[in-house]
């Protein structure tokens, strides 16, 4: 049986160390912001109780 030709993996974009560091710090910041956003909704839900979606004009 003939062997299938193995495709050489493409290298793609290789990040420099500075780019990797910056990406990591941005990822951490996004995670913290999302966590804070979820926590905010959680706390407000506790504070408002069932009237959470009752928003008078």
């Amino acid at each position, binding site marked *: 049986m003939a062997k299938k030709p193995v495709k050489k993996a493409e290298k793609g*974009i290789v*990040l*420099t160390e*500075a*780019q990797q560091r*910056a*990406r990591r*710090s*941005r990822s*951490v*910041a996004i995670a913290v912001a999302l966590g804070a*956003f979820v926590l*905010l*909704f959680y*706390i*407000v839900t506790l*504070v*408002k109780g069932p009237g959470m*979606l009752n*928003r*008078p*004009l």
Partner: protein
Amino acid sequence: MARTQSMTAPLASSLEPSVASPSDYLALLKPRVMSLVVFTALVGLVIAPGHVHPVIGFTALLCIAVGAGASGALNMWYDADVDALMSRTAKRPIPAGVIAPSEALAFGAVLAAFSVMTMMLLVNWLAAGLLAFTIVFYAAIYTMWLKRATPLNIVIGGAAGAFPPMIGWAAVTHSIGLEPIFLFLIIFFWTPPHFWALSLGRASDYARAGIPMLPVVSGAKETKKQIVIYSIVLLPVSMLPWIGGFTSALYGAVALFGGAAMIAFAIKLNGAKKKSDAELAAKHLFAYSVLYLTVLFAVILIDHSLGWAFGRIAW
């Protein structure tokens, strides 16, 4: 006016891996402007009659802060071309090539949408509507239209910075009262002399960027005259909360003497003959104007927390 095409530094491409850090994105939010916005909103929120849970109050202030930051990011996105031509703004993240314009636009748009949506879901519809209007007013009406169209840009555009106390008030009361309108008017009439004092020393920058600021269009002499006129108008306007019986005599005295000092700084600037004297006087006026507004609003807070004002012991 057509957008300037020439750039002094190449913009970052959204296709290139970014080296922008969270602090660069924070810079897009104009944190110094944001701090004054949050403070004035806090005053509007605290003096409002009625009760608001501290968590809801904090949420309202957070939404106002993020909304103000979003406006700043959208402003920097649209103004990247002129920012690159001015020494004061050339180091901002977009003209410096750190953040791509499309990234700043997405960042600003997402923050604007989330701040308004959160205000709507967790606080109330009126506060959310006012916040949305403020963001649109600053980002679209001021930044995209007025700034490049008329020397009155900062007069009309200043309304955007005057809304936060009204939003803070609306977050508590679900309405708009006379008191936040007075606070709105104080910031509205304070903005032109404050900003013109800054722009006087940067007229050549604005001219190079093609921005029709008053010192560029009408010259330094006319700008100084207008600063004096607005400072004079600001004095009685700043007294309105006291005249209306919403604050104590302490506020009335601070507004009177603080406003008189503002006029004195403006007159000193108007009378400065030598260029170096005028530059120094403009710097003094700018620094004083920030202190003046901060103290004015701080006294309203003190008045309220001591129970001296807002319907209790007035005059």
